[in-house]
């Protein structure tokens, strides 16, 4: 009796737990998220990357087709970087600083960017801001015999001068197909009091392009003060890539007039032996016929 009561209670608790879990799973609210990132690539024209996402629990899902307007310093039409930009399937959109805002951009060392969503039911009214100080990331290389060194310097515009900045964390790597390959043992490097980083290149015989060129890349990622800075440099430090084009050579997958020699030899040898024997036997049959006529 007591045991059955315990069992019944256990079942009730289990049922409650299952139903609560399923309800809580179903009722996870989706929150719209808007993110704005500043990018400076090779110290040239800056760009702003917009990301729109749905946050469901701990998961993020891209939100596509959201129209966003990005402004410089103030959310007025005159300071908009462009008309509305629409996020793609991965929930991202990019806008480049237009020439019309050049004077405004150059007038100050610090700027604020504002992103505002319009015309989207779920995201409407959502905005995001990011403030940056203009900064440069420069990359240089030196070669001393077998030793190859990569040097970078981070400078920021302070009081009208480009001043070296200490304590900026960055990554230095070699561009590969999927991602960047670090050049040495360290994952990241931090600038010294002169704003410099010096790292030894330890990737000997890394395959480059046909001329042996590799693309070095230094990145400051999502820095609170400077945003994202990226600089690249092509250096002839890789192994030359030799592309052997076998398209026009004799091979098993080539066209009929490019049959491999060994296959031709073997095939014709076998065919020759078998059909040669057959022709010989036909000759013997003719001989039998002649013998029959003579004896007949």
């Amino acid at each position, binding site marked *: 009796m007591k045991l059955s009561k315990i069992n019944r209670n256990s079942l009730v608790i289990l049922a409650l737990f299952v139903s609560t879990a399923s309800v809580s799973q179903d009722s996870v609210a989706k929150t719209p998220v808007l993110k704005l990132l500043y990018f400076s690539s090779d110290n040239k024209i800056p760009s702003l990357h917009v990301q729109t996402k749905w946050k469901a629990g701990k998961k993020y899902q891209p939100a596509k087709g959201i129209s966003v307007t990005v402004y410089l310093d103030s959310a007025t039409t005159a300071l908009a970087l462009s008309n509305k930009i629409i996020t793609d399937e991965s929930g991202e959109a990019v806008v480049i600083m237009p020439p019309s805002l050049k004077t405004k951009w150059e007038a100050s060392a610090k700027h604020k960017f504002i992103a505002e969503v319009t015309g989207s039911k779920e995201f409407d009214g959502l905005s995001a801001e990011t403030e940056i100080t203009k900064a440069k990331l420069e990359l240089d290389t030196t070669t001393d015999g077998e030793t190859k060194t990569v040097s970078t310097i981070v400078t920021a515009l302070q009081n009208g001068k480009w001043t070296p900045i200490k304590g900026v964390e960055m990554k230095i790597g070699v561009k590969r197909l999927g991602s960047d390959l670090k050049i040495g043992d360290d994952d990241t490097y931090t600038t010294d009091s002169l704003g410099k980083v010096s790292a030894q290149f330890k990737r000997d015989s890394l395959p480059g392009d046909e001329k042996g060129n590799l693309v070095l890349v230094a990145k400051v990622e999502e820095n609170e003060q400077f945003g994202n800075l990226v600089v690249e440099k092509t250096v002839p430090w890789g192994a030359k890539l030799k592309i052997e084009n076998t398209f026009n050579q004799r091979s098993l997958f080539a066209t009929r007039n490019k049959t491999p020699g060994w296959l031709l030899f073997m095939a014709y040898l076998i065919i020759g032996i078998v059909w040669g024997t057959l022709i010989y036997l036909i000759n*013997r049959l003719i001989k039998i016929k002649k013998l029959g006529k003579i004896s007949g």
Partner: protein
Amino acid sequence: MENSTVLTNEQITQDLLPQKFGKRGMIWTAILIVICCIGAIAYIKQLRKGLVVTNMGDYVSWGIYISNFVFFVAISLVGSLITAIFRLAKVPWRTPLTRISEIIAVSAITFAGLIIIVDMGRPERLLNLLLHGRLQSPIAWDVIVIGTYFCISLFLLYITLLPDISVLIKAKDKLGKPFSKLYCWLASYWKGTEAQEKIRDRAITILCIIIIPVAFCIHTVTSWLFATTYRPGWDSTNFGAYFVSGAFLVGAGGVVVAMYIFRKVYNLEKYITDKHFDKMARILVLLALLYLYFNVNEYLVPAFKMKKPEAEHLRTLFAGDFAPIFWFAILVGMIIPIIILINKKGRRPLPMFIAGVMVVVGAWFKRYLIVTPTLLHPFLPMYDAPESYHHYFPSWEEWAIAMGSLAGMLLIITFFVRIFPIISIYKTITDQNETVENK
């Protein structure tokens, strides 16, 4: 021929001369002709409308036609087994079985070639294969080797027939006129002189020697049509040996069935004896065990590794949609015949006939299983494909053509038996004379 019975040459000739069809023979022939005609009608429809009349599609592009092709190629191997291997091994009891196996080989390889043309959809393009084919392609090898095997088999059949046709020419009075012109055209020059006999004997030996590697080639190359394709179920280094062993089995099964029928219909008990059935039963058990061994290799190794695409393919075979056919082919095509034939009672003619039929039917389904399930399991998922593409069941046109081709093969054998002796008269007499002399 029974060792205890000594027959006169006249008696042997009388017994083994081709006979007119009786009532049963006429019905049998009529049925075969009707099936062939239905197949021909279906083929004409296919020619007019294209391969759209079949249920083949983007995925199952090789259906029942190719299964049939592999079956025909397999059964044709028997010509080299009984004629060539037995002759070279000097197997003394081979004589009554030799011509049966030769005609099975010729008729099967004829329809193997024809069914491939049927599968092409556009037969006039066969010439393109010869004019523009790539020697690198196993398909080109198959065309070459099938053509060669057909020629050798036909040559072997013809040259072994020469003395018998001479007998038939002499027996014109008994046989009547219908085929006398044909006999004269084929072998009027054969006088049976010592010089002719010597050349013929040597030619047969040479043919027996070259037919064995060519027969192995035809089955190996046919297996390579599959094995050189990287697909679950075909990606195997075992395929050549697997095909050759399977071909030996179905060929021997086919001969056993034919032995029983000819013995029964033409009262050949004195020539195709219980001893022949017993010997063939032992060979059949050996071949079934060999093929079973290759089957274990073929399925156990990928099943042990269970790579995902292979696993899905094997699951379908072992426990999925194809499981009934798979287990039917394994049990009926191999295991049950072995069980029947390892018993002495099972090696009698009737149980042997049943076992032979089981082997042949099982072998046909086995070929179907080699072709179709693999095509239904491509490496890339069948995404956004119509539901009908996920399954394959032949259309009536495919069935009609396939059955028509099988009937055509049997019709060749039937007409051959009507025109020529199914057991060599000349060799039977020679064998008996030698036996008597030795005594």
